[in-house]
């Protein structure tokens, strides 16, 4: 018998009895080493990475989020009871600190797609084609143009990220902004905010969207603080792709 781990919390949770987790299993929470763990007891050694199981994992973590700010485990974390006790005993202090860090907080997500692609034109102006050059030189000129495009894209992407961070700075606690200059999905950001700042955060995001009509946005939240939990490092995820 193993324990499938959903999340850690600071206090005992009032989970509904009808709540089901991975594979339709019941969900329980109990105090262990002074921390509350939310688990299902499972027989399997690997959890299938199916849509149902992934949604079940999220459903349980979100249920825990109703009256706490849990630290979610990565999907597929299976451990023996002894392994869990030993993990919690060894890492208790840092987990308590991390729980304090996310207390009363939620995660908000922002994804941004860049719609314009003006950089090719400007790079062509800076690096003109050389009709008289040999194939080797022409190859390098083309590479130079491509590198210039990358630099322009990186600068544009960095400017979007800086603008976004500045806009929400006053209402967030922490941020993780990933800039992908060469991709259409140019910004993937997660912000940790206090629950009572949610409306304020949404107003700032609405203002940012108005300031940047050339960008396409996907905003979502509140989510459990998946991005800021980072408590899976000691455990391997045991899941399979079916």
């Amino acid at each position: 018998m193993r324990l499938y781990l959903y999340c850690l919390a600071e206090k005992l949770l009032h989970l509904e009895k009808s709540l089901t987790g991975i594979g339709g299993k019941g969900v329980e929470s109990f105090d262990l080493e002074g921390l509350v763990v939310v688990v299902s007891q499972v027989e399997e050694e690997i959890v299938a990475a199916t849509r149902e199981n992934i949604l079940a994992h999220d459903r349980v973590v979100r249920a825990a989020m109703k009256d706490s700010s849990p630290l979610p485990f990565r999907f597929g974390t299976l451990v023996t009871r002894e392994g869990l006790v030993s993990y919690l005993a060894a890492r208790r202090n840092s987990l308590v600190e991390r729980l304090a860090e996310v207390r009363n907080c939620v995660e908000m997500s922002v994804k941004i797609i860049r719609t314009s692609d003006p950089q090719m034109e400007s790079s062509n102006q800076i690096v003109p084609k050389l009709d008289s050059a040999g194939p080797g030189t022409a190859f390098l000129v083309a590479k130079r143009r491509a590198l210039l495009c990358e630099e322009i894209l990186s600068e544009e992407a960095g400017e979007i990220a800086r603008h976004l961070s500045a806009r929400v700075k006053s209402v967030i606690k922490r941020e993780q902004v990933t800039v992908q200059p060469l991709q259409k999905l140019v910004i993937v950001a997660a912000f940790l905010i206090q629950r009572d700042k949610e409306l304020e955060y949404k107003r700032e995001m609405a203002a940012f969207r108005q300031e940047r009509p050339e960008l396409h946005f996907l905003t979502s939240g509140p989510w459990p603080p998946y991005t800021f939990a980072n408590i899976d490092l000691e455990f391997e995820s045991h899941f399979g792709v079916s």
Partner: protein
Amino acid sequence: MKLPPENPFSAEPDIETSHPEEFVEQLSCVTDTLPSRINVDPQSVEQGLAKLVLTLIEFIRRLLEKQAVRRMEGEDLSPEQLEDLGLALMKLEAKLQELKTQFGLEDEDLNINLGPVGRLI
């Protein structure tokens, strides 16, 4: 902008976009959120290793290209040296393309997700 709530502390997330198809297309490309592993199946182990090795070669090849372009910009190469360097890099690119085809790999396969640091290439 939809501002929710009578219940601002809801655990149910709002998801908002005016361009859902565009985001579905982009996010469906993100397949490397699951940890990639080398499959030890005898038939596919060769491809797994080739992917890893070719990714590293591609990384080095790009570094060489950048260095060559910097030297071109610095104008410290004669036209003949520039042509030779360009030809050599062109051949290297063609050879790598040939190897990718041989192992059934696409351009987007040649990358390594380094977690919080981002992608190698």
